[in-house]
């Protein structure tokens, strides 16, 4: 069954149209990757799905409901979660306050369920339990990334949009983050992952959607992707495609 579907969505800012009729199909429980070069429209795609940038035409369906005209807050209430670009944890709030805010709509629906949900999130991210009274802004980049993911999970979303999670992280922190996202994947939550770092993204996603100047030019399960396709559609050259190809090989071996 499809969790999220974009049908010929166009969007942009002012006189500039960035998305020129995007189609996207995200099945229940899968991680769909959206890859592309700078300016391809990856972040605008995420913002349009989130409801921050309005779609000019086309349709966005979430769990069988047309959400094209819904505002961002209503989409969160429906079960959409976010790990925004740059992680964007609330630096002046503690870990626990960040999580409480993450469960804003859950607590409004049913406050009594929150302690159990919080406990399960702490079980998945023990470091956050240890640091629950610490201000988020004083934690390391990797810990903030964990908090951003946990903050999205604590609202029990059916879909999480993860925007450029590896940006600005060291290779070691990227490894930690991969494990964090793997935990989310194993929990069965559907995810859309936008990544500039194709190798990082390919190590996680089930399906890759390759974006070029606001259009999805190629969609395929990761198992069916090869270096040539990446080099052709992402325009990253064979050397880089080779690097991402090793990520592909690693995935195919799993």
């Amino acid at each position: 069954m499809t969790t999220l579907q974009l049908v010929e969505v166009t969007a942009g800012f002012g006189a500039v149209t960035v998305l020129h009729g995007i189609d996207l199909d995200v099945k229940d429980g899968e991680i769909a990757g959206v890859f592309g070069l700078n300016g391809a429209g990856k972040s605008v795609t995420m913002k349009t799905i989130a409801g921050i940038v309005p779609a000019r035409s086309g349709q966005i369906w979430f769990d069988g409901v047309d959400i094209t005209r819904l505002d961002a807050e209503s989409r969160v209430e429906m079960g959409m979660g976010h790990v925004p670009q740059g992680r964007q944890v609330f630096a002046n709030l503690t870990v626990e306050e960040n999580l409480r805010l993450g469960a804003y709509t859950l607590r409004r629906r049913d406050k009594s369920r929150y302690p159990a949900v919080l406990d399960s999130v702490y079980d998945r991210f023990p470091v956050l339990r240890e640091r629950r009274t610490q201000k988020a802004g004083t934690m390391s980049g990797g810990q903030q990334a964990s908090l951003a993911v946990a903050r999205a999970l604590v609202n029990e979303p059916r879909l999480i949009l993860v925007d450029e999670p590896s940006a600005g992280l060291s290779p070691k922190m990227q490894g930690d983050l991969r494990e964090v996202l793997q935990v989310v994947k194993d929990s069965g939550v559907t995810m859309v992952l936008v990544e500039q770092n194709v190798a990082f993204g390919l190590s996680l996603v089930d399906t890759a959607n390759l974006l070029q100047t606001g259009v999805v030019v190629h969609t395929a399960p990761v198992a069916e992707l090869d270096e040539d396709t990446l080099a052709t559609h992402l325009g990253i050259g064979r050397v880089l495609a080779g690097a991402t190809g090793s990520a592909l090989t690693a995935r195919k071996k799993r």
Partner: protein
Amino acid sequence: MLQVLAIGLISAGIYALFAVGIVLVYRGTKVLTFAGGEVGTAALYVAAFLVTDHGMPWVVGALAAVLIAAAAGLAFEAGLVRWSREADPVVTSILTVALSATIFATEFNLHGNNPTTLETPVRIGSGLDVDGVIVSPIQIAAIVVAALLGFGLQSFLRRTDFGLAILAAADDAPATLLVGVRVSRIRLVLWASSFGLAAVAALLVEPTVGFITPGYASTLYLGGLAAAVIGGLDSLPGAVVGATVLGLAQAFADKYFKGLGLSGLSYVVTLTLLLVVLLVRSYAPEIRKRLAAPVEVTA
């Protein structure tokens, strides 16, 4: 000494009430609002219209004044602030100056410079005798309400989801939106609360002066602004502490420097305090760094 303390605390209560409203908006929007004084004055005119001109009970007039001020806050946010959201908060601050000037001009056109009176249930001159200074119940109420608001609101911000959402929206509005918080609603509540608080402050202050003229509360509001800055601008208890420091400093200066015959002594005290606090705050990190640095010993 007790006398000076009593006078200082009366002023502190007034400044704190205005300062709390200023900090509340600043914490939620990073906008420094200059309109509270005139909003408070306008609220008093509304109360006077209902109570003095139409014989309604003071409670009804006061309630109407607070509600109308809160409604003005809603209208100001929805009509002007919302449309300047993408701009620097300084732009919105300037909008509040424009609002203040507009309200002042309207008051002046309607009432001229003639003092208007508002019949209040409690008059100055009766109450607690503190070393010769009569502290009226309404002045005590101002101090108590200010302290309750300063410390109570701080607790509200940390302990409730809505309060946390206010803090988060000030930190990062787009990220707050993405956790499902209706940030626009928060901003409406903040502006309505701030303007409502300005009305409450003006109503509690009015009996001390006894009459209303255009711009009446704006002078006191400047004290509130200074108190908010002294308290750190983003701390509600800090606003109350700042107001107390300012109120007491003015009272002590008045007692001990009155003989010098300086006019506008309270302004001198306010500006000196502001200058000292801002200087200390800007140099504090450097001083701390130097104190923490190991001392080099040369042979």
